[in-house]
């Protein structure tokens, strides 16, 4: 018995965590999936009724808004964060004397809770007391910045806050990537007389393709999970104008008592994440094991 334990100790040590993951990740996903196929309302039922929850989901106008917002928000968030991150990384790569301090400033928002971020930006974008009032106070009477209460524009307010929070991290990622490019290649280019901007566009940036992918994955992941920020900034409003799948799910689960809808919306979120992350993880792990 003791010998068996000794031989298998590594597996025994890993087992509890692994079993925990099996149950609390995969088991739970299966449970949620199951419930998404039932008529559960306030309490879960376990008789499979088919795909009615998904039919209801895709027919719900609120869900439409949520998914739409996800793509608008997600798209803008990812693209602008990457562009801004890249720009800042390139700027910071230019032998800046106070680089450390500036980097710290660009990155600190990542250390904050999204609730804090939402709270701060809610105040800044407050129509009447925030930026709108300030700029008006400077003489621009006609300036309006009421995005936060404007159903059409509210989602873009969230984009601004989200970019503020995450672009610093993307910058750090890209900066590390810029600097991991083989210096010999760059020196060869410089000896060849290639101008700086060209060195970036033709040599450095193309070689950073894997890092762009990593950044995309991280940002997409953040976008899909965005819950805290929306709750703090707009609560999903005005009305449902800034609803995202995450807030929809939460509302269905805890306010509306519609577990079937909560489960199905959660499963759809899962599917979206799955579609993006699995190919990435697969290629990463394969590369690491080579």
């Amino acid at each position, binding site marked *: 018995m003791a010998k068996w334990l*000794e031989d298998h100790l*590594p597996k025994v*040590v*890993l087992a509890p*965590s692994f079993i925990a*993951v099996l149950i*609390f*990740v995969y088991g*739970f*996903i299966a449970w*949620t999936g199951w419930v998404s196929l039932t008529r559960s309302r306030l309490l*879960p039922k376990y008789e499979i009724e088919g795909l009615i929850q998904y039919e209801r989901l895709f027919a719900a106008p609120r869900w439409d808004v949520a998914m739409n917002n996800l793509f608008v928000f997600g798209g803008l968030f990812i693209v602008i964060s990457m562009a801004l991150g890249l720009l800042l990384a390139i700027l910071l*790569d*230019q*032998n*800046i004397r106070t680089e450390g301090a500036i980097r*710290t400033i*660009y990155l*600190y928002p*990542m*250390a*904050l*809770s*999204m*609730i*804090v*971020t939402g*709270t*701060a930006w809610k*105040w*800044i974008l407050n129509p009447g*007391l*925030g930026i709108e009032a*300030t700029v008006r106070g400077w003489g621009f009477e006609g300036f309006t910045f009421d995005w936060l209460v404007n159903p059409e524009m509210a989602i873009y307010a969230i984009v601004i806050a989200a970019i*503020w929070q995450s672009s610093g*991290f993307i910058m*750090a990622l890209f900066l590390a*990537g*810029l*600097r991991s*490019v083989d*210096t010999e290649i*760059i020196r060869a280019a*410089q000896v060849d007389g290639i101008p*700086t901007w060209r*060195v970036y566009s033709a040599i450095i940036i193309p070689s950073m393709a894997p890092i762009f992918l*990593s950044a995309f994955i*991280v940002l997409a992941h953040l976008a899909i*999970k965005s819950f*805290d920020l929306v*709750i*703090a900034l707009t*609560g999903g409003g005005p009305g449902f104008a800034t609803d995202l799948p995450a807030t929809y799910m*939460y509302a269905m*689960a*805890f306010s509306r008592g519609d577990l079937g809808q909560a*489960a199905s919306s959660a499963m759809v*979120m*899962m599917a979206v994440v799955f579609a993006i992350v699995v190919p990435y993880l697969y290629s990463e*792990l394969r590369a690491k094991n080579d």
Partner: protein
Amino acid sequence: MTDLATPTLRRSPSGSRASGRLGRIALRWLLYTLLVLFALYYLLPLFVMVTTSLKSLEEIRTGNLVALPREVTLAAWQTAWSSACTGIQCDGMRPYFWNSVLIAVPAVLISTLLGALNGYVVAQWRFRGANMIFALMLFGCFIPFQVVLLPMARLLGIMGLAGTIPGLVFVHVIYGLGFTTLFFRNYYVTIPSELAKAAKVDGAGFFRIFWSIFLPLSLPIIVVTVIWQFTQIWNDFLFGVSFSQAGTQPITVALNNIVNSTTGVKEYNVDMAAAIIAALPTLLVYIVAGKYFIRGLTAGSVKG
């Protein structure tokens, strides 16, 4: 690990014509201007939070968002800490601050310890299926937690942990395991396997090798993991709002309640003070140990 310290393009020493040099100086001015502008963009919210929290409500209503306070008052901070209303109770942020501490500290310690052991097993004790197990655990990091909220709520209820601090600790440990294991595994993989072999020849067993050889080597990754986990758990809102009740709520939930409470007059200065209180621990950790924080963020994201 890539070093963020050395710029890619060193300035070439060759001189240039006068107009070229002028152009280059102008370019550097533009560069610094841009950098400063962006710095302002990132600092603005912090600045606004701090100044607003030090103003009186009068000044806020009549004054300017970006103006410095004419009269500095700490009244808002007092209120935020001890008497702001989070729903029915009006005890300020203080009790919730401690809730977060009670949740974060055990959760960080346990998930870090487990992550270290798991990473050690996966990295140094190859056995069939180890990589598969690791992959499955890793995937768990990436799921949207919405998909486990419902079953977890039911489970906590069944276990009698619904709305309790231990319940939240449990949740954070489980869902933090993926990341902590990832960090330690990536770190231990860089330690040559001959070290463990030499120790085996010396007679050391599984735990001895971990305790005497790997753990002493692990300080850098422990710091990274602890900082990462602390930040994640302290800043969490989703689990907090789903699995706590009045009294056991973490600070993020309390903050949201204070800010979004619909009763009474909106006290913006109190809101801002409360936000800063909520942000302070992780912000301080970042300022003090930011280097390690960045390493944690980029570990496993940057290839190679």
